[in-house]
């Protein structure tokens, strides 16, 4: 798999503050790559160095074989960018923004009207930017990021501030970008977003990357624990649960049991035990660890703190 972005040993400081420190990673062609971490971890700084908007103090970056610092205009021509908390002129109309953007790129731009239609903005084409909803603004910014049919698309905190419904719609759009063979580089502090969208993620904290892999592999590596919560009034249940292979803890409050252990087989083993002993349960659910747990495990604190 060809890599389209190579970042090596990048460091960026603002006065005494080290925003990004010794950051290195590669992004492969055609994948959705997520840089995830809490606010202030250095996600945006890293992304803006790659986009050529900031100059790193040291280290090297290559995007599509170009140097983002020395060849920034060649690079801008081939990538699409959505910035965190960006605005447009209050009274610019949707079609004017798309038309302006389309005129800026060397190659023939994609069909702007078709793009607006895909993003559900056709009936807003004469609306002023200031009168769009948060979701509509983000969709317009996605349209602007895609107008030049870019090879790599950068999306910075794309769904922050959107309601769950708008967020889901945007996730579908991002998957659609990948399906057209583009590479997507995104940042997010929402673990659910990273888990649902990204092929691979890099976890960044205090300006340093602490792990890179696919969400599934990260969970398997760092959080092998599995938990089953069930309710039963069977008096012999507790002893039977403790005997299951891989089980480490069983706690009970009234008729509710929490069975903890590790290994992918744990859930199967619990079900097997229930059916073999004909234990009658009134409730059964599993709790699987996710990226949020991985983050907690690796950093010792929750991402929301």
């Amino acid at each position, binding site marked *: 798999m060809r890599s389209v972005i190579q970042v090596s040993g990048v460091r960026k400081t603002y006065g005494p503050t080290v925003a990004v420190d010794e950051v290195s990673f590669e992004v492969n062609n055609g994948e959705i790559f997520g840089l995830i971490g809490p606010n202030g971890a250095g996600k945006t700084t890293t992304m803006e160095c790659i986009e050529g908007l900031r100059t790193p103090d040291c280290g090297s970056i290559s995007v599509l074989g170009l140097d983002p610092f020395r060849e920034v205009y060649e690079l801008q021509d081939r990538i699409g960018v959505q910035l965190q908390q960006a605005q*447009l002129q209050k009274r610019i109309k949707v079609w004017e923004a798309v038309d302006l953007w389309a005129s800026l790129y060397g190659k023939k731009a994609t069909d702007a009207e078709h793009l607006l239609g895909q993003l559900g903005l056709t009936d807003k084409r004469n609306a002023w930017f200031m009168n769009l909803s948060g979701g509509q603004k983000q969709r317009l910014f996605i349209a602007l990021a895609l107008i030049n049919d870019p090879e790599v698309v950068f999306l910075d905190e794309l769904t922050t501030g959107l309601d769950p419904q708008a967020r889901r719609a945007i996730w579908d759009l991002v998957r659609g970008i990948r399906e057209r063979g583009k590479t997507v580089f995104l940042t997010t502090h929402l673990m659910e977003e990273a888990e649902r969208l990204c092929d691979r993620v890099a976890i960044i904290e205090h300006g340093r990357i602490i792990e890179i892999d696919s969400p599934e592999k990260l969970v398997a590596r760092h959080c092998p624990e599995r938990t089953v919560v069930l309710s039963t009034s069977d008096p012999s249940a507790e002893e039977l649960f403790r005997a299951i292979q891989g089980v480490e803890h069983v706690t009970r409050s009234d008729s509710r049991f929490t069975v903890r252990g590790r290994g992918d087989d744990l859930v199967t083993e619990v079900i097997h035990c229930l059916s073999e002993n004909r234990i009658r349960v009134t409730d059964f659910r599993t709790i699987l660890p996710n990226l949020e747990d991985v983050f907690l495990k690796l950093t010792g604190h929750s991402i929301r703190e």
Partner: protein
Amino acid sequence: MTLRGLWKLTWIEIKIFLREPLGAFGSIGVPVLVFLVTGRLIGRGLPPSALATSSFIRVGLPVLASVLITISAVLSLVTIVSIYREGGILKRLRATPLRPQTILTAHVLVKLILTAATLALMVLAGKRYYPIGVRVPFFSFTLALLISTWSILSIGFLIASIVPTARFAQPIGAVILYPMIGISGLFLPVDSLPPAMHAVARALPLTYAVSLLQGIWNGDPWSAHLGDVAALVVVFVICTALSAKVFRWE
């Protein structure tokens, strides 16, 4: 330097400006209206001979009007640049193949076009109400005004480069630019000012702009004002170089 997108951006910015409440009316309508109303009042109160001999009405007023319109255009530019910076609009425009100089040139062009429109309307209105009766070297005056405007605009850009927030942009710009008018030679000849004030006036760029504009309006040859032009060019070069160094996009 490629200027791809310049005309489209300029045209869009003009449309956006005209869509703003009070945008067109405040910057073009009000000056012309004030001009017409004062013209009416003065025209009624004074005999035509007094109008022709009053040097303030013959030379001072047109130059004052030009300078005021220029300064208000510059202040509006300062405000727009800081609002665009604060809102992340400048940064968003920069994350495209647009060259930074294209973005800034478009804004300067918008102001020049609107200033020209205002002045043209005033000249038309003035023909009716101010029987000035002097032959004004229109082309030369336009050129002189253009040189002065570039120079004042470069000061505006320097201000826009350093003001921290959009809220302060307009007042800071006004505090810097308007007092310059007082001792620029528009109301009193610079030579008649007390020595200390005289020195200050000589250090202010507006003094040279006023001297150039008044002279050209009066029919002086350009050779009499090479010093003024040189001073304005120096101001332009220094301010542009400084703002290129300290300008912040976000």
